[in-house]
């Protein structure tokens, strides 16, 4: 195949993929559309937080626990910071941390999982048994132990949760990788003398993409909820950084007076996880029959 021919082939592939995506989107059920719109909305708010928010993230006003008013749309929190502003910045901080954690967990989990699938033998044995042990304790408990040792900073939070979460990614990518690693074209690439990096990136990874993408959505939800839970417990993201989990906790007393404000950040968390779940459900059904009846 000449160079121009291969370029043409790639372009044709791209076009067909785009059209396929378009037709799939047209056929998407309402729940998936709802999910996509909500996720895009969250991303928009998170990216443009600085311009949307009426006040600064840590700007303090004189009145704490102010009720909803013209000036403070959703009132103020326990230190007199604007609730709406904190909510908007919370979107940026909480989502950014969850995305970073999920990316790190996938980088570790997928590369180790595919390596284990490719080489098997002792490497696979060691990694798999280590993962078994890590998964024999609930990850929240493990995270709490590790946070005691390393203290709660955003870096340690991301690294700890990513490492604990990568165990599940490892299992999945090893399982799907094993099916691909025995294919003839992988054998061919190996005989051609390609290195493991090339085989994983060019031969295996493109063929295990759909389940991994779906898993990314599910893992994101899980990580997001874990970060929120840890922050809610007061051992996750530390003040004065705005974050939904800790906002719920700091303003929880308001609920006793029948005020819904503290439920808003919790609701924001719930809405995002539900939306991601909707989209993942649809994606799984569209790409494969993986989850027809569970």
């Amino acid at each position, binding site marked *: 195949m000449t160079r121009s021919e291969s370029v043409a082939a790639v372009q044709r592939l791209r076009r067909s993929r785009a059209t396929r995506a378009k037709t799939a989107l047209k056929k998407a059920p309402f729940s998936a559309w709802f999910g996509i719109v909500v996720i895009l909305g969250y991303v928009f708010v998170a990216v443009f937080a600085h311009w949307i928010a009426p006040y600064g993230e840590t700007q303090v006003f004189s009145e704490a626990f102010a009720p909803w008013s013209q000036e403070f749309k959703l009132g103020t929190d326990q230190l007199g910071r604007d609730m709406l502003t904190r909510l908007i910045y919370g979107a940026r901080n909480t989502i950014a941390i969850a995305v970073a954690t999920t990316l790190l967990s996938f980088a570790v989990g997928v590369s180790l999982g595919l390596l284990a699938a490719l080489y098997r033998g002792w490497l696979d044995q060691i990694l798999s048994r280590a993962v078994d042990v890590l998964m*024999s304790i609930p990850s929240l408990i493990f995270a709490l132990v590790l946070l005691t040792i390393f203290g709660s900073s955003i870096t340690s939070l991301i690294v700890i949760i990513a490492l604990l979460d990568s165990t599940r990614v490892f299992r999945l990518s090893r399982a799907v990788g094993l099916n691909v690693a025995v294919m003839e074209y992988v054998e061919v690439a190996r005989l051609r003398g390609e290195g493991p990096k090339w085989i994983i990136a060019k031969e295996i990874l493109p063929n295990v993409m759909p389940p991994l993408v779906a898993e990314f959505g599910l893992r994101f939800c899980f990580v997001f909820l874990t970060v929120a839970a840890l922050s809610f417990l007061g051992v996750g993201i530390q003040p004065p950084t705005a974050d939904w989990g800790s906002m719920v906790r700091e303003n929880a007393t308001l609920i006793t007076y029948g005020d819904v404000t503290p439920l808003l950040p919790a609701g924001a*968390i719930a809405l995002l996880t539900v939306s991601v779940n909707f989209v993942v459900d649809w994606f799984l059904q569209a790409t494969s029959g993986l989850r027809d009846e569970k």
Partner: protein
Amino acid sequence: MNPVARTVLQRLGLGLVTLFIVSIIIFSAIAMLPGDFAKATLGQSATPETVAAFQREIGIDRPPVERYFVWVAQMLHGDFGSSFASRTGYRRTVAEIIAPRLYNTMFLAAVTALIAVPLALGLGILAALYRNGWFDRLVNVATLTTISFPEFFVAYMLAYLVISRDTFIGSDFAQTLPHWLTVSLNWALNAVPKFPTLSNVNDQTPFWEHLWKVALPAITLTLVIVAHMMRMTRAAIINMLASPYIDMARLKGMSPMVIVLRHALPNAWAPIVTVVAFNLAYLIVGVVVVEVVFVYPGIGQLMVDAVKSRDVPVVQACALIFAATYILLNLLADIISIATNPRLLHPR
């Protein structure tokens, strides 16, 4: 030897090995502490002598292997060491801190399990019986929703519901609604029992009052774990309903209820028991958050407080208890599913 007994013993051994490795990991937590930890715990004014005494007390000056075995031996005798919160002349042992709280947590978990497991099985069987009907869809949507909510959201929603019983009629929101809606909403809210939103119990609390006070935490946890168990029960039974022997029973003219209960359910136990055990184990994680929301003096709350004050012996003891329960429950599920389904003795 009886093959069932052999498999059970094998699993038991495997569980013990896992617990052993996990205990090593938890133990090394204390060895991995950064060097200035003694100073951070004792405060700025600590003299080198007190720092050295503290380090001797937590045993950093001895070899780790020796310390590990001493630690395990003490643990097996019920001595979990002393909390970092103890001072000279006032020793607070971890065991005495944990014991009453462990009882509270077990109480909450037991109440939740007693509500959640029968409820999930019942809903799952009914959903399988009337599959694809309105009941099935309703239960499916409701459980999917509760499954993706964070625990503290469910908890605070329930607390809010109970509180609005009193505050709703006077709120601004009620004024903006049409009169009839306000009245009917208020009537509906009054039907909500007045559960306590703070579960402050102590060891003198009588049994029934204790039960009343854990109502909200137990309902929250139930909502969180029922979904998964119910969906699995439904799926396992529907899976069984496709087998030829069910067709046979149907052709004999048996009622759908009898088919599900007598023919499908016994063969579906293995996956159901596994998922029930998994969810009871999941309670352990849920318990931490829910205890904090309702200020229930359980072991989860203790652990969170200990993490904040970096009280390592307490964190270690709590983590070990949680890990042991988790491993034990999973082991139990394995054993029950093997006992109910001897085919699992011969894995392919």
